């Protein structure tokens, strides 16, 4: 069965998110842990900026959990750059045993799911899972030079600058991971790289349907079903596809790509990138869940598994979606809020010192 129910329900000890200036102006600005003023992070190239960003995120998450880097057993992560260099180079600096993963923009759910399984089965005590993307390095790799005066089609999405990391642990907190579903690769024959939402929606539909069925639940049992980066068009398509399968996604459905940007920004269908679901999960969702505003949510990160080469050779875009079910574990397990604000300050002051 593709859904794995976690017997011990490991805890989501801390979530840390960091985003760029544009994302920091969006509706979720009050939830992010750190908003960058300068998206180069004072590095010479955007690839270096991206790995610095990921490094800061991982260190931030570990700090926020009140742990040391040496307390972490494994680092699960990946990113969108070729050969997942941002994650590998981050792992080089941090010297945490590294399990590199790639599911394009679904990497957050994939790493979170595997990390949870590791902790659940007693293979590790504390594990960190995280990913990030950078608009400028993604544009460089997948599209055109930044300064080229071209137009984007209306179905295009905007790769976010930012990301997030979660610490999964045996130590109790307010949030537990109760089940995970690994998705099938689904391809409905969309070949347009500027319409990722339509390419990924069938995969999201497949994973949500299987997860709900295997858990013996209905869509109404979730306070929020959250897809990764389908965007406005992709979300509409998903709702139609789910309706076809007789599952109604109502007000409890949302998409990270639609949540992250202000409506006035020129971002077309919304945000995308591995960092999209990572940053929303570790900011807004983490805070809402740990406060008990949400009791049970389903995070479904979605990824498009093509490369620039396969697209140029005329292949269609395979999609994938992984799901992670998170539950509110009940308050007062630890005095989270006090600890967290203190730790966040520590992280910021350390940055100032560098």
């Amino acid at each position, binding site marked *: 069965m593709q859904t794995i129910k976690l017997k011990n329900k490991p805890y989501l000890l801390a979530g840390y998110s960091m985003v760029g200036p544009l994302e920091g102006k969006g509706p979720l600005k009050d939830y992010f842990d750190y908003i960058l003023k300068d998206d180069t992070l004072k590095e010479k*190239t955007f690839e270096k900026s991206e790995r610095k960003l990921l490094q800061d995120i991982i260190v931030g998450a570990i700090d926020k959990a009140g742990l040391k880097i040496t307390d972490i057993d494994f680092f699960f992560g990946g990113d969108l750059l070729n050969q997942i260099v941002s994650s590998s180079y981050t792992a080089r600096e941090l010297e945490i045993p590294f399990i590199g993963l790639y599911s394009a923009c679904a990497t957050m759910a994939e790493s979170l799911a595997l990390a949870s399984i590791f902790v659940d089965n007693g293979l590790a005590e504390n594990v960190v899972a995280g990913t990030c993307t950078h608009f400028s390095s993604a544009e460089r790799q997948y599209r*055109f*030079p930044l300064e*080229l*005066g*071209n137009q984007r089609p*209306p179905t295009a999405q905007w790769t976010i600058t930012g990301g997030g990391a979660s610490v999964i642990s045996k130590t109790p907190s307010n949030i537990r991971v109760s089940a995970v579903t690994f998705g099938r690769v689904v391809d409905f024959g969309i070949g347009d790289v500027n319409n990722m939402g339509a390419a990924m929606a069938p995969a999201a539909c497949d994973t949500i349907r299987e997860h709900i069925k295997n858990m013996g639940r209905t869509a109404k049992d979730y306070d929020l079903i959250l897809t990764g980066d389908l965007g406005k*068009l992709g979300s509409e398509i998903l709702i139609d596809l789910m309706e076809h399968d007789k599952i109604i996604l109502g007000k409890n459905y949302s998409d990270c790509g639609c949540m992250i940007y202000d409506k006035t920004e020129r971002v077309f269908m919304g945000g995308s990138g591995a960092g999209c679901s990572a940053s929303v999960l570790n900011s807004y969702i983490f805070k809402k869940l740990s406060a008990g505003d949400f009791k049970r949510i389903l995070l479904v990160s979605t990824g498009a598994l093509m490369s620039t080469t396969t697209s140029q050779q005329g292949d269609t875009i395979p999609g994938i979606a992984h799901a992670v079910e998170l539950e509110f574990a009940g308050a007062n397990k630890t005095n989270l809020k006090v600890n967290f604000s203190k730790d966040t300050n520590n992280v910021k002051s350390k940055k100032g010192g560098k």
Partner: protein
Amino acid sequence: MDKQKRNTNYNIYVESKIPKTKAWPSLFKAFLVGGLICAIGQGFYDLYSYFFPNLAESELTSCMLMTIIFITCFLTGLGIYDVIGAWGGAGSVIPITGFSNSISSPAIEFKKEGIIYGICVKMFTIAGPVIVCGVVGSIICGFVGLFN
């Protein structure tokens, strides 16, 4: 239902959901930006012919082109031309300024990979096809002209 049929139906369905670009506003913007660029070019041409009356027509054209190519490169470097391009569309792509932007923007972008592997290799990633098609087209036209 077999997969191929499913995919065809899905593509038709997606196509019906895609918001369409409105033709008239895009055409108007392109006309405005393209026209403005041409008017600026003509302005420089007239200016040069006023100050240097001895120059031939072809020399005046070259001077004018060099000026607007330089201005485009400069605006590309400042990060202004991509904003004009995103608004004006084909209006800023079709004139020679679009060509200039398509060469200068990768040159700036890939400078970080070094002069040889970055700038020299990547400079024509976007303009390359235009040059190749232009050269091949000229050869064909040359042959047609030769036998007529």
